[in-house]
């Protein structure tokens, strides 16, 4: 753990005086390595470490905690500040239906998330409605329909011929007419370097003016998470993230990086392939995971 590594780095320091510059150098090196190994973005790490260095330099060596524990405490606090304190609960549109659009890279878990979110809001008393706007991936619509059947949630589809924005717009109308109050729009996976696909996403969003856009991001994402998030912010202006595959053992530094750089919180955690394995994201659980 980071605590162990820091204690080793500060071996021999006892409760007297302040942390010396050399000791601070040693600990910031350990922190930097730990964060980079956890996939925290290179630039974010640089800034984070300099903040910790500032706080640690001249910090009074406590009698109660070992110097290593003290630094861990500083790091924990800085991480907690970064991730944002409490869970960001769902808000609903003042005039129903609430429309949520899901976007993200290929294979990160959007379609599965669509089902999970539908189940989640139904437990909150809403009547969910799914719209299938992935007109590219083979059997993508089939996938959402099977999920819909399994959950007994209606799925709007027009097949793969019309444009996603047309399907979304007409699907939204159908949801309104049907009296559904929570609409979830599943979109195709896309790469941010694909300008046409990013423009398409912008069009879909423009057409349905969603109450919320969520970036669905796989927790194993590495250093390019920031670049990806910034592009989705530019084209889709997402207001929150769904962090997926948290049932794995990826440290999740991408989450920290994206929150820091975009200022958007992680709203939901997907922790398995089952529809029920989905809940609000609690930021404080992330710090320990990242530090390893």
């Amino acid at each position, binding site marked *: 753990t980071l605590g162990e590594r820091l204690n080793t780095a500060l071996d021999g320091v006892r409760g007297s005086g302040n942390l010396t510059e050399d000791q601070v150098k040693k600990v910031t090196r350990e922190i930097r*390595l730990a964060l980079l190994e956890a996939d925290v973005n290179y630039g974010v790490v640089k800034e984070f470490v300099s903040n910790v260095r500032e706080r640690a330099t001249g910090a009074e060596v406590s009698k109660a905690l070992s110097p290593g524990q003290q630094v861990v405490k500083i790091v924990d606090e800085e991480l907690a500040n970064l991730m944002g304190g409490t869970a960001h609960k769902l808000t609903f549109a003042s005039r129903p239906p609430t429309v949520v659009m899901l976007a993200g890279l290929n294979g990160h878990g959007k379609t599965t998330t669509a089902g999970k979110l539908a189940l989640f809001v139904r437990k909150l008393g809403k009547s969910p409605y799914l719209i299938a706007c992935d007109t590219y*991936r083979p059997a993508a619509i089939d996938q959402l329909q099977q999920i819909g059947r399994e959950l007994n949630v209606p799925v709007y589809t027009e097949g793969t011929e019309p444009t996603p924005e047309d399907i979304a717009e007409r699907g939204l109308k159908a949801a309104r007419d049907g009296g559904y109050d929570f609409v979830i729009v599943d979109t195709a996976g896309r790469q*941010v*370097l694909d300008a046409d696909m990013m423009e398409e996403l912008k069009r879909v969003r423009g057409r349905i003016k969603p109450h919320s856009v969520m970036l669905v991001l*796989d927790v*194993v994402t590495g*250093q390019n998470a920031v670049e*990806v998030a910034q592009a989705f912010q530019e084209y889709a202006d997402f207001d929150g993230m769904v962090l997926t595959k948290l049932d794995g053992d990826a440290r999740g530094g991408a989450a920290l990086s994206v929150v820091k750089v975009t200022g958007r919180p992680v709203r939901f955690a997907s922790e398995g392939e089952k529809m029920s394995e989905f809940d609000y994201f609690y930021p404080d659980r992330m710090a320990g995971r990242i530090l390893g």
Partner: protein
Amino acid sequence: AEFRDAGDEEFWERVEEILISSDVGVNTTAKLVAELEQEALEKNITSSDQLRKLMIEHAARMLEGPVELDISRKPTVVLMVGVNGTGKTTTIGKLVNYLPGEVMLAAGDTFRAAAIEQLQTWGERTGAPVVARQRGADAAAVAHEAVEAAQQQNADVLLVDTAGRLHTKINLMAELEKVRRVIERRIPDAPHEVLMTVDATTGQNGLRQVKMFAESVGVTGIILTKLDGTAKGGIALAIANETGIPIKMISVGEKVGDLHPFDAREFAEALFG
């Protein structure tokens, strides 16, 4: 002579930044930098342009490995494995186009919604017959039936799709081992290739994924997918460095032609592009 004098510190920081920002990871980056420093010292190389060329050389060397797929048996059985969403099913579809001879597919993902239909769509597109059962069927049973069918129909290659799974799920890894055993029982030295898809956007966890899958079912080659994105796929270097498992192919898009044999030199150059 101290090579890394003040004037060169910037160069080394930049090299480190490029490598780490490409997901090469701390350990493999340190190894590459140490190798480079050593050789630069020995050969008295100081120009950053020459150093960059040397770096590409070292990275390429680390990545070099056998990229051919062994398709000499009839049928050659290829097991496709990997974590959820990394591109297994799509890669299988592309492989039908890429490989010579008669290719058959096994819809071994009996778990996920529309997994079978997704593979069947690829089968229709490429003209490859698909052996499938209903969703929820035993994956090993489908594999067994497919190997039998491939033998009976004289297929050249059988591509076996499997459900995505996290290496942390012991029961799912056990299921994969069972699928492998069932294939082995039918054809003693099969599967002849166990290809694992790794998403190029994966960070350091990619290394762990490969190690765990290799431990479980043995991986004969890596297919690095989604290289058409912003990720440089530097995790390939960490994988090559720490596991020695060859990177055999790269996937650069969703279309059937977007699959190519891995070129270590090209990849290393793109990394420092």
